[in-house]
């Protein structure tokens, strides 16, 4: 399937490059003169030639410094770029794919290593701390910025000024910024939101049955209470006539998976009071943990109650299970990242176009930690759930090439194609991505595409946002929180007790890392939360 | 080329394995070391080979100290009781192994191996592995290997002990001729079998509890055992040793008037002695010392009757098969002219006069 003339051109370019560089020693970062581009401006780009597992979609190369055309002018032959990324396929597969393309058009050698989620943090951080220049480019969850920032090379101005970067939404530029410097290169935009099956929720017969049974209208849930009612009503019934029961809710609950994010999603509307400033996880003044305050406890109560609406094994679901459970049509509703939604919208999915996206459920009251009362007012708090990001190591000897790779990775053509492949885990993060027409072109129904785009862009407009705890030692904090949640879900402890213990654990961690260090970092997060 | 051991002693965990062993081994002679199991025979061989370090004493070869020569330079071959061969090598390879170490030429090795295998009667078995041979054949391989080298010292540690009776006799006869051809080699051969020691040995060394009790030509040791212990070790079945008295021309045993004092004992003063009498020299009779039968062994043409006189055990070897039942009271007749007399400490006092000694006979 390869384009032979194209290969020939690369070979020729490589020969030219080699002759030109003569006997310069290998692997020395140096700027070589540009060479002729391999692509015409605005050429059609497609992944087809890499195998039939990629969509045949074609998009136009958008001219700019990161385009195929521009990058193919660069000559990185004889140099090696080392990259660490998440396991294949989520973010790992696009990392490899674009690495291969980058090799083809620049002559560089790119080595990619893929690592499971649980290992990524220490695999990146250990060499950084030891001063070992192991990787030039690193892909990792953006909430680790507190741990990583000291070792990262700030994104140079020339890349900040690219049109692609300028189009990144405010929230994701914020996520990439540490102490006023952009140190992460945005490649993904992630948030938690709600996904539901419209073939059930919009089915008049079921609406009538639900009304008859509960006296309420069946609609996409607006609060966690509604979510629970609907999930409980339908759980255990066969909703699609395949002889197997369906279930109400799929959530990430496996302790050392991404349970902490699921819990924060459930807690967000109870704890993010639009009028209370100065911290959601900590009181910024005292650095006292707030995770055992009534809002968090209620969220955990909800989650424990929700157990009855989970599929078998639902109490040990990792993200993959959640994606398969909703994406495979087993459960009615789910909330987490885009993956399950995109998975359900793959061309061969049996629930394609029978789903819609919506904002995370909210609440009818929100806890006010200053007055210590529940304020009766409808509340919504979109959760910008970390998301993948990328960065270049300060210790890298190939920073220019590294940034060129990231700029190429995230160029408009690549991103547009990546967005359509569910397993890639690349989700909208530029304003241009909130375009329903693009998704309709992928075969999505109008309503589905609209709900998706509106949900995502709606979150950008909110002023009551929740961000992750982006401080040093975040993994420890999240691990302690997940332990508390898991203990309550397992029935080992009551929610209040479990969270009290988690809070004590948090204090200890803060003590250990240094209160001021954590506070300085947390101030960055609070600045995002309290932003108007 | 004399091998001399002087004052070798070895104590392990309070048990004497060797106790002031002094002995000289002459070239061209076959020395049999006889003793019961655990007598220290194997330890002595291992010490001679250099496999066993001793606590004290010295070992010289023609006056040159041997103690500081490592095993692999001692010019010694050894055949073990347990048919030890190299399991991974063929019969040929086994015999050729030491020759290859000596760096001999292929032809020479071929020649010596063939000769050696012919000697032990294993021609045609070259390609077999030891595990494909019978026990006797395995031991022949070990012997062939030891012989092929033509070492100055050849040690054999009860080489026949683990073989069945028939094979043992056969090999023993073969050994007799084999070892007589070994030129200047010093051969040391241990055994528990008096017959083997008598038949093979030019010199017999009797060991007991780590000591050498007596050294001498087989006939001398057989006829003149220095102590009751030697007398018992050197005979099979062991010589009957029993306390008794000489009183007024009579030998009394356990209160019985056993027999009259024959000529060779006539000079002895009255008093307490230990007497020795071979099993063949006791017979069942209508009168004599009374004993109770404790055990009866019938082996082909002979019957061994074990009887207790008082607390003293006797073994009686009689021709033919006799119907004796356990617990029967029998009368023992002791041949007076065959009595050995030892003093109360067990040292030889008088031997019977032998007219004609049949060595090795039962």
């Amino acid at each position, binding site marked *: 399937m390869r384009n032979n003339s194209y290969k020939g051109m690369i070979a020729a370019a490589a020969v030219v490059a080699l002759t030109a560089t003569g006997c310069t020693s290998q692997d020395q970062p140096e700027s070589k003169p540009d060479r002729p581009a391999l692509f015409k401006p605005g050429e059609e780009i497609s992944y087809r030639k890499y195998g039939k*597992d*990629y969509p045949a979609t074609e998009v136009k190369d958008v001219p700019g410094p990161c385009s195929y055309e521009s990058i193919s002018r660069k000559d990185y032959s004889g140099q090696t770029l*080392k990259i*660490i990324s*998440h*396991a*294949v*396929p*989520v973010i*790992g*597969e696009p990392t490899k*794919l674009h690495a291969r393309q980058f090799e083809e058009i620049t002559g560089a050698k790119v080595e*990619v*290593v*893929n690592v*499971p989620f649980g*290992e990524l943090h220490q*695999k990146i951080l*250990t*060499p950084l701390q*030891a001063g*070992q220049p*192991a*990787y030039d480019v690193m892909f990792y969850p953006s909430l680790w910025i507190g741990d990583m920032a000291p070792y990262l090379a700030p994104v140079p101005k020339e890349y900040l000024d690219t049109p692609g970067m300028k189009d990144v939404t405010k929230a994701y530029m914020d996520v990439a910024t540490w102490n006023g410097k952009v140190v992460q290169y945005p490649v993904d935009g992630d948030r938690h939101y709600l996904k539901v099956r419209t073939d059930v929720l919009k089915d008049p017969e079921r609406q009538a049955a639900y009304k008859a049974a509960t006296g309420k209208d069946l609609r996409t849930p607006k609060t966690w209470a509604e979510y629970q009612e609907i999930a409980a009503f339908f759980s255990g019934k066969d909703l699609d006539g395949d002889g197997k029961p369906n279930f109400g809710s799929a959530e990430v609950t496996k302790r050392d998976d*991404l349970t902490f994010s699921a819990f924060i999603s459930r807690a967000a509307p109870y704890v993010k009071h639009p009028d209370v400033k100065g911290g959601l996880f900590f009181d910024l003044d005292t650095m006292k943990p707030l995770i055992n305050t009534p809002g968090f406890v209620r969220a955990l109560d909800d989650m424990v109650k929700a157990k009855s609406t989970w599929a078998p094994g639902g109490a040990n679901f*990792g*993200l*993959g299970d959640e994606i*398969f459970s909703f994406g*495979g*049509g*087993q459960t009615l509703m789910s909330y987490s990242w885009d*993956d399950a939604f995109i*998975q359900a919208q793959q061309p*061969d*999915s049996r629930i394609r176009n029978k789903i819609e996206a919506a904002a995370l459920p909210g609440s009818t009251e929100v806890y006010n930690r200053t007055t210590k009362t529940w304020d009766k007012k409808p509340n919504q708090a979109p959760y910008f759930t970390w998301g993948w990001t990328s960065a270049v190591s300060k210790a890298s000897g190939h920073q220019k090439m590294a940034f060129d790779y990231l700029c190429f990775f995230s160029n408009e053509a690549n991103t547009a194609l990546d967005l359509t492949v*569910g*397993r890639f*885990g690349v989700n909208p993060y530029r304003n241009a991505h909130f375009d329903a027409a693009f998704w309709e072109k992928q075969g999505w129904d109008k309503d589905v595409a609209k709900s998706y785009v509106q949900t995502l862009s709606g979150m950008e407009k909110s002023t009551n946002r929740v961000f992750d705890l982006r401080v040093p030692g975040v993994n420890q904090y999240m691990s302690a929180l997940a332990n508390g949640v898991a203990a309550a879900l397992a029935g080992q402890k009551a929610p209040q007790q479990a969270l009290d213990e988690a809070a004590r654990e948090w204090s200890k961690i803060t003590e250990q890392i240094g209160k001021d260090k954590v506070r300085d970092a947390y101030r960055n997060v609070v600045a995002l939360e309290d932003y108007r | 080329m004399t091998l001399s051991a002087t004052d070798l002693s070895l104590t392990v965990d309070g048990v004497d394995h060797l106790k002031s062993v002094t002995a000289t081994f002459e070239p061209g002679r076959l020395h049999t070391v006889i003793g019961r199991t655990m007598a220290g025979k194997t330890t002595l061989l291992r010490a001679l*080979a250099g*496999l066993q370090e001793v606590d004290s004493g010295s070992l010289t070869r023609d006056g040159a100290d041997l103690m500081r020569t*490592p*095993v*692999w*330079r*001692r010019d*010694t*071959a*050894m055949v*073990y009781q*347990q048919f*030890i061969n*190299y*399991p*991974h*090598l063929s019969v040929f390879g086994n015999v050729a*192994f*030491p020759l290859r*170490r000596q760096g001999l030429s292929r032809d020479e090795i071929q020649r010596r191996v063939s000769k050696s295998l012919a000697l032990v009667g294993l021609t045609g078995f070259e390609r077999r592995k030891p595990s494909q041979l019978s026990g006797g054949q395995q031991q022949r391989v070990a012997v062939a290997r030891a012989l092929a*080298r033509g070492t100055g010292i050849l040690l054999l540690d009860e080489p026949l002990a683990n073989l069945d009776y028939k094979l043992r006799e056969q090999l023993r006869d073969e050994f007799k001729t084999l070892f007589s051809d070994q030129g200047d080699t010093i051969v040391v051969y241990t055994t528990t079998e008096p017959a083997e020691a008598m038949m093979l040995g030019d010199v017999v060394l009797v060991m007991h509890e780590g000591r050498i009790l007596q050294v001498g030509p087989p006939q001398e040791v057989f006829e003149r055992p220095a102590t009751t212990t030697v007398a018992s070790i050197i005979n099979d079945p062991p010589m009957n040793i029993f306390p008794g008295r000489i009183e007024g021309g009579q030998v009394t045993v356990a209160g019985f008037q056993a027999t009259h004092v024959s000529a060779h004992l006539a000079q002895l003063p009255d008093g307490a002695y230990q007497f020795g009498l071979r099993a063949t020299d006791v017979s069942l009779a209508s009168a004599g010392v009374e004993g109770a039968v404790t055990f009866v062994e019938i082996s082909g043409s002979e019957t061994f009757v074990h009887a207790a006189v008082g607390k003293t055990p006797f073994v009686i070897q009689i021709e033919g098969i006799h119907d004796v039942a356990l617990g029967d009271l029998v009368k023992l007749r002791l041949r007076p002219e065959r009595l050995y007399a030892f003093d109360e400490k067990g040292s030889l006092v008088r031997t019977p006069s032998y007219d004609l000694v049949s060595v090795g006979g039962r």
Partner: protein
Amino acid sequence: MRPRLYPVFKYTVIALWACFVAGPFFWAMTTSFKDANAVQGGATYLPWIQYQPTATGWRNIFGGAGGIDVIQPFLNSAIVTIAASAISLVLGSLAAYALSRYRFKIGFIKNSDIVFFFVSQRIMPPVVLVIPFFYLLQWAGLLDTIAGLVIVTVALLLPIAVWVMVDFFNGIPREIDEMAMLDGCGPLQTFVRAILPNSLPGLTVAAMFCAVFGWNDFFFAFRLTFTEVQTLPQAVVALNSSIPPWWTLSAAALFGVAPLVLLAIWVERYLSKGNLSGAVR
């Protein structure tokens, strides 16, 4: 048990255990021919009848889209495993021979204590070792190199080699050593010419354990390399993503087992000859 029922009982038990042993392999095999929809649809077993098989999983482990390329990792694993096993076997059997044949006494330390020291290295939780190993290899400039990985793997395998070989040498009569020495071999020659050739079964078992633990080591290989030396378990684990491609993972798992199955067949030959230990008697 009545004699006539015994064979029935015997074969029933063997068959049950065989099912249990083979079950995961069967499941991996059938899963390796599925796709996302077949997996999401609940448990199915038979291709064509219950689901439409596809070779995506297998294509993906040989560089297909969304997969990995197992060839280079396979070679790396093979090199590391063979080198580390060889070094461990050589050093391990020498040490084991010393511990089996000679008496050591250094203060209160005796042979059995030295053997225990070797074996105790396997008690160390790997978590403890990996950080210092990291700094050790960094200091030596051996991070992310085959050599570095081989050194660390030797530390894992050497105890196994010593443990197996001490037991094995203990089963070989010392008289063989003595005889070889009497036959003119120095100590090293004795070991090489008389003992080693008789230790092939023991060496085989030791080699198998070394190969199994070396081949399957994920923990150290993963943490002490960056990009240059990817071993097979690392390559397979790289598939354990938040959306695991079960089909590819299954295919890779089966692929990784294949060479060791050949090893199992080889080991079984020695078993059948009945000379895996106590080869002499």
